[in-house]
């Protein structure tokens, strides 16, 4: 198994005829993702990478059947309309790849998602990849690179990766693979402040995934995602080993937490607060990014030489 994406999930691409949409459709297919079609208003009837293009999500769903995930590659200002169209078309999971989606649009998408029982990944996500199964978004780039970089799951030593940084999500997967660990899924939750699936949500998915033995987190300062993961660990909802690195230690002084809205959150959002919360909940928090692989090996009880 894997989470979010595997070879059986049916995927469509909104904005499939655009520069990025077209290129990423090809890369997703070449990695094994089951892309069944796409849409762009006014371009219905065309083909991209041998896949049918429809004007609307509704037409796509009527013609090829319901899909599991829609990946959105449209300009940031059109993302809200595209996401709502996908949800109204009955699609229950949406990936919002674009950067610079207005935060009030993201909140409106979240409200709609809640009302129709859907969820979303992003905005501003590099994507999700399950080595050997499939990829959503742009993570990994070329299929041959991605295959070379990320190990497939290995029984007893497979980690799931959750990252708040796009580039570092690939880096985590690469360096963890180099020390002989397997990867179930790498999920970049997105770089924005208002996100669909957040670290605690994805951690619960990894907890339920029998293939995942431990969870690796690339966290960052700001927000409350890491603290909420710690709460899930404290309450026994996440029991698999958690190994975390929190970026932005040096940025602490320059980061303005003088804002009263942040201050009354107590310790939330700071580097020290996140490290303390995770450690108190039993996570391994490494000081340097380069220590993550060793931390993961130790947490899984795998000798470093393997």
């Amino acid at each position: 198994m894997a989470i979010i994406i595997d070879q059986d999930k049916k995927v469509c691409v909104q904005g499939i005829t655009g520069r990025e949409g077209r290129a990423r459709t090809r890369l997703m297919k070449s990695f094994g993702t089951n892309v069944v079609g796409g849409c762009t208003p006014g371009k219905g009837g065309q083909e991209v990478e041998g896949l049918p293009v429809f004007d609307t999500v509704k037409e796509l769903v009527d013609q090829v059947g319901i899909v599991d995930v829609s990946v959105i590659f449209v300009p940031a200002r059109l993302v809200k309309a595209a996401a709502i169209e996908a949800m109204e078309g009955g699609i229950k999971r949406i990936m919002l790849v674009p950067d610079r989606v207005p935060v009030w649009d993201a909140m409106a998408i979240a409200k709609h998602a809640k009302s129709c029982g859907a969820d979303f990944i992003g905005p501003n996500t590099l994507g999700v990849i399950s080595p050997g199964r499939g990829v959503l978004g742009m993570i990994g780039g070329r299929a041959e690179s991605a295959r070379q970089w990320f190990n497939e799951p290995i029984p007893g030593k497979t980690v799931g990766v959750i990252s708040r940084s796009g580039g570092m999500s690939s880096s985590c997967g690469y360096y963890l693979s180099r020390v002989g660990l397997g990867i179930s899924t790498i999920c970049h939750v997105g770089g924005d402040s208002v996100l669909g699936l957040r670290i605690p949500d994805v951690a619960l998915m990894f907890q339920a995934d029998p293939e995942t033995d431990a969870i690796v987190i690339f966290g960052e300062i700001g927000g409350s995602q890491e603290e909420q993961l710690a709460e899930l660990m404290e309450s026994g909802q996440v029991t698999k080993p958690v190994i975390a690195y929190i970026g932005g230690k040096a940025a602490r002084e320059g980061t303005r937490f003088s804002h009263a809205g942040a201050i009354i959150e107590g310790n939330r959002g700071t580097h020290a607060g996140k490290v303390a919360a995770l450690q108190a909940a039993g996570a391994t928090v490494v000081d340097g990014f380069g220590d993550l692989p060793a931390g993961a090996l130790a947490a899984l009880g795998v000798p470093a030489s393997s």
Partner: protein
Amino acid sequence: MARLHEHQGKSLLSQGGIETPRGHVATSPQEAREAYEKIHAETGQGVVLKAQAWVTGRKAKGGILFAQSAEEAQAAAEKLFTLAFGNFPVQEVLVEEMIDIDQELFVSLTIDDSSRAPLLLIDLHGGSGIEERADEVARLHIDVETGVCRQEVEQLLADSDIPQETHAAIVSAIVNAVNMACKIEARSLEINPLVTTKDGRVMAADCRVTVDDYAVFRHDELGIAIARELDHPATKLEQIAYRIEQDDHRGTFYFAQLPTDGHEDTNGLIGFHGAGGGGSMMSMDAVSSLGFTLANFTDTSGNPSAAKVYRAARVILSQPGLIGYFGSGSGVASQEQFHSAYGLAKAFKEMNVSIPVVIRLGGNAEDRAVEILESACATLPGTVEGYRKDDTPAFCAQRFATLISTCDREVTSDTLTRSVPDFVGSKAAMHFAIGGGSVWIDQKAITDTATQVINQFGDGLLSVSDQGVSLAVELDEAAGKDSEFIGLEIELERAGCPVLFVDLAIEGIDTEATAI
């Protein structure tokens, strides 16, 4: 988050139906004096003068003064205009009527990442010391589309010890403030304090507003020139960089200059070029920990074009006093890294860099990227080295420090000047316009090798015949191929035939753009 000044925020609040003190913005002591006279004529009272700067603890830092006469107002303003908070010189002073405060409330709207919705915080015993009273703060969730629930605010007041006759005005002020924040797509709005006055008015005595950078494009009315989180007014280079970002949507380019006070006592001032937020922060830590002072923070990521990376490198290099250039990002980039290598190589070559350069180019096609960068820059006076994903940021930073330690510290970016080949601007050269510049080709120097390179790397844009080189596509199509032409320029250079030059003069940095 783009920040607004206090007076801008108050003006928006006032348009939204929230009362604010009478006030005028002064940009000189004389204007402050005139403002005093206007206000005094209406109120018969003195005024308060508030430096407009994004700084916390403004009063303690001398940024708020009081005046009881026109002379005092002028003198106070003179004092305020000499102040600077960090990089932020005071350029505007808000002159306001004094108000006789009865009670202070704290009102703040933030965006809550956990509930994915706006969150309203109200402390009825507002003002200072809010940090110690976190438990007393009421938290109301706001519907992103319908706004605040008036009854909830009414209930909050009904349960309080605040005199009932002010309740209606307070509720209205809070509801209006939330509506205003929603309308301008604020990232945060803080009214601290919202006051009741002894004469029974309810008004916003101070406010802080930030606007969502990503929504600024649909809010021309706010007059935000640069939608960036900066703690100082944008510098000239930051403005140039922002224009570059706005003109080229391929990938992102972020550039901010950092405070460099005291850099003389460190290992030196360096230019920093990151790729991807998380990796950039880590790389910054790695190079800072070796005692260097970063002149800037830059991030080019999201599959940027060669042209964008070229311009980013040019902006970085145009900062004075740099003794080195360090570039490093996530290290395992999903994008094809040779586009960045072409852009960097062009910038370094054009500026004939004489300071050490270390760039970590790890990611897709990293071997090709490193080879392009190093071979194109091999003959430059400065050492240019490229590294891969298996080279850690710490290792690259160490290598950078070693290179710097062997260099003459007198050599800095101050001496760098841009050079363009002689055939640029010559009548015999073939040339055509592309987006943001032009392409020049030295027809007389086309050799068999050059023809081969053009055929191999030219992306079908050019054709070579006995009559020379010509465009193989329409001008319109060629216009968008700036990055492909940069790639071709570097490949020709690497093959020893520098016969093509992409002239992308940057407005504000290159004084004379080459005329066609």
